[in-house]
């Protein structure tokens, strides 16, 4: 499974989006698509588990999780860390 597929799977399961996480554009604002801050915490936890990473304090911002592209760059940054 590619990284993007994993991210989309996590969003499908935990993002509580009003749209299909499998097909949304990678720059679509997830918060404007129905992801609540509660849901974003679950997304964060599931991403940490899926990629065996731990987001640093400075990554724990709304902006890190606002789109699939933002999540991917956040995950990559943590994988490199």
């Amino acid at each position: 499974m590619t990284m993007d597929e994993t991210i989309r799977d996590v969003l499908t399961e935990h993002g509580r989006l009003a749209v299909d996480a499998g097909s949304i554009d990678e720059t679509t604002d997830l918060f404007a698509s129905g992801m609540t801050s509660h849901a974003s915490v679950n997304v964060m936890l599931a991403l940490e588990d899926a990629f065996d990473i731990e987001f640093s304090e400075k990554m724990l911002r709304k902006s890190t999780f606002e789109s699939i592209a933002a999540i991917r760059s956040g995950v990559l940054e943590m994988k490199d860390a």
Partner: protein
Amino acid sequence: MTSITEEAPVVSDSNAVSRRMARIADEISGPAADEVDQQGRFPSETISALRAEGLLSALIPRSLGGMGASYSELSQGLVSMGRQCASSAMVVAMHHIQVASLVRHGRNDLLRNYMVELVDRQYLLASATTEVGTGGDVGSSVCAVDVAGGTFRLEKQAPVISYGRFADGILATARRSADSPENDQVLALCRPPELELEQVGEWNALGFRGTCSPGFILRASGDAAAILDDPYSDVSTQTMLPVAHILWSSLWLGIASAAIDRARRFVQAEARKRPGMTPAAALRLADATALYQQFADLLRCSVARFEDIQDDPDRLSALGFAIAMNSLKVSASTLVVDVVRQSMVICGLASYRMDTPYSLGRHLRDSIGASLMVNNDRIMGNNAQMLLVHRGE
């Protein structure tokens, strides 16, 4: 070298706002407090006095004609007001929370002009963030603004709008559009004459009776520019939550301060009757005083925490800050009840009776509201959620 006379220094008394609020609290809010409480009536004399001194625009920057007061000044002023009349102080605090949201998130011309007008007319602003059908979660809305041709329309079933009937404008949350999910919210400034309120029910509560907070059906329309520029989630995280928790805690500290003043006077009166014998209640007063100090220092520190980062949206949005500001609300609302209760034990029946200089019935009733207005369990639930990922300081 530029001349130092080029720009005359602004002669300002940094405590002017808090001193003036304290004077109004002592001279006007205090004497009316029992009547406001008993009749559950709006504290109009306090609002009129603040209006007369231009204090409803204390937070508006000088560049827009306001006083440019700091949050610590306002906090101090609210402590003084809470000491005299918690209902008055709560109305004033809620008004300033709305003004802070406008000042910090209203950048377009209409909203800036409105702020200039607010300075001139001394408008009182109220808030409609809760809604029937959301289970008390202010982070989601059922209603939506309907924007077409540059104007918006909104109808909202609000279970509570404090002093709605007395407000000159109301900031209401709603979904961004009919298609938006429940949490994609905006904040719209609703103003007469395009604002209509239909009252639903009465406000007959245990405390904060003067806030006059019944439900309303709100119907409004207006220029779409009256919708604040930033999404409500940002306004809430960066301004409404921290400012609300700071300003509420300030007036709650005022309630605690009034209670401990009575306790101290009671113990000292006892001591005067029998010099050489430390009254039994003195030890409890020492205990209550330590508690009060925790409360006062927590507030002072929290105001500084906010002021230090108030212009940094990134740091304001950090989990650690949100957790700290939520903890402030929960701690302060718990401490106020503890201090009032301890003070009642110190003063005994004199505080339980309604007609003595040590009466604390009103203070106790008001203090209990603190943990219920945005329920502490909900706030702790939010912190619990954030702590699943927070990494500590």
